[in-house]
């Protein structure tokens, strides 16, 4: 069952077109890994899905409702939550306050402050600490918990491993594992190809704003993704050696 549908989406940063004619459908329970080089338009695509950056043209529908012009604070109320790149926790506020802010959209569900602390036990002792004083891993857990507090239908995760040590990334992914297996629909942007393909059910590779590869994770090899990543899959693009 299609939950999120993106049709011919174009997103601009001023004169720069960051997302070009992107289309895909997402079924309930899908875990989509969005890969691509820096500047491929992954973050911009996620931000436009979350409403933080409105599209220039194209359509985004959620359960059949047109969301294209809906601003971010209403989109989260409809069930799309983004964990932004660089975590973006409110550094002057405590962990608990950050989590409570996640409830602003007013969606009810199973996620409560205590359940987030159950899912991320490393946060519990830092409950009343300002998030600006936390480690990167703790901030990331806070950002994910804050998004979960809105009880989203679709969770968008933008580079959760950015700036974290491999050990901490392992821990964040271990904590995400319960979500991944619980049937939450997810879109994750990840630089680490191996990790992305291990957790995803589907892979989309972007290059210069376009989708150049869209396949189930099982039916795609690392080599194919790598080729798409660098744009080597295209016929006749072999750049003449100079």
């Amino acid at each position, binding site marked *: 069952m299609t939950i999120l549908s993106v049709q011919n989406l174009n997103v601009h940063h001023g004169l720069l077109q960051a997302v070009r004619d992107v289309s895909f459908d997402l079924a309930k329970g899908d875990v989509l890994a969005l890969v691509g080089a820096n500047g491929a338009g992954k973050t911009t695509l996620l931000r436009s899905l979350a409403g933080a950056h409105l599209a220039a043209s194209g359509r985004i529908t959620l359960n059949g409702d047109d969301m294209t012009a809906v601003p971010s604070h209403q989109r989260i109320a409809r069930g799309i939550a983004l964990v932004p790149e660089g975590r973006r926790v409110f550094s002057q506020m405590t962990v608990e306050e950050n989590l409570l*802010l996640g*409830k602003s*959209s007013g969606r009810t569900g199973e996620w409560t402050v205590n359940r987030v602390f159950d899912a991320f036990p490393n946060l519990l002792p830092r409950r009343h600490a300002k998030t600006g004083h936390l480690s990167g891993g703790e901030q990331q857990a806070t950002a994910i918990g804050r998004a979960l507090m809105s009880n989203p239908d679709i969770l968008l995760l933008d580079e959760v491993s950015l700036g974290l040590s491999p050990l901490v990334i392992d821990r964040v992914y271990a904590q995400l594992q319960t979500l991944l297996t619980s049937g939450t629909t997810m879109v994750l942007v990840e630089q680490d190809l191996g990790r992305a393909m291990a957790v995803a059910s589907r892979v989309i590779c972007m290059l210069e704003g376009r989708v150049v590869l869209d396949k189930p994770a099982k039916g795609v090899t690392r080599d194919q993704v790598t080729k798409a990543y660098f744009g080597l899959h295209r016929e006749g693009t072999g750049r003449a050696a100079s």
Partner: protein
Amino acid sequence: MIDTLIQGILLGGYYAVIACGLSFMFSVMRIINLAHGSLAVAAAYGLWLLASTFGISPFAGLLIVLPVMAVAGWMLQRYLLERSARGGALLPILTTFGLAIVLDNLMFEQFGADTRSLAPFIGSLSYDSWELPGGIYVGKLAVMTMASAIALLGGLQFFLSRFALGRAIRATAEDPDTAGLVGIDARKANALAAAIAMVTVGIAGAFLGMRATFDPYSGGPQLLFAFEAAVIGGAGSLWGTLIGGIVLGLAQSLGAQVHPQGFLIGGHAVFLAMLFARLFLTGVPFLGRTGFSRTGLPKIRAALRSTP
């Protein structure tokens, strides 16, 4: 000497009340409202009009004037500041400067150059006092002003830290983009913050009118005192504003003891001394940690981040 200190502290209570809205608006919306003093005078004229034409006591008049100020704050944010903010960080400041000129001259046109006061409408409160041991008299109104300052700043602090709406306002102040992503309507949060700020301006106007006289051009000095108190206290910090007000009040009272002309000079000297001390000690702009480090740096980071 003790008398001077006590009177200075109580005077600081008044400065804290007028600086409260300025500091709140700066910390939450990053706008230095140069129409702050003029808006306080406008509120005072509102109360004076209600008292002189309808015989409504200024305290009851607040029940009418404060909601009007709240609506004015909401509209000020929605129709003036929000629009001008799109033109850059400097434009809202210029807009409030223009608004101050318009307000001052509209009030001059309407009410003329006569000085007014709310003192005649509050009975003996304006000159009543309590006697402290040691033959020191403290004005009842001054004590009330100080109590209001503490209640106002404490109430705002409590609201910001304990209520969902307060948290939403703080989150919007820190990062409006991310606030939207967690489900906060940043425009609404800012308009609400402006409405709250204008309510405090209305209260400041009431105390301005009750403790002294005002005329259409009284806004400027009030803005200056509010600005000095807010900066001395570290702009953007609510309890700091109370301290700033008291420091300013003490400096003026002590200055007046040194020389009959020293009242204003004492205040200005302390303000400038604090300004330079902060510049030299911390090396950051005079608005302290709330200046560049909390607005400038995140903006640069956001710009870097939004580059695809």
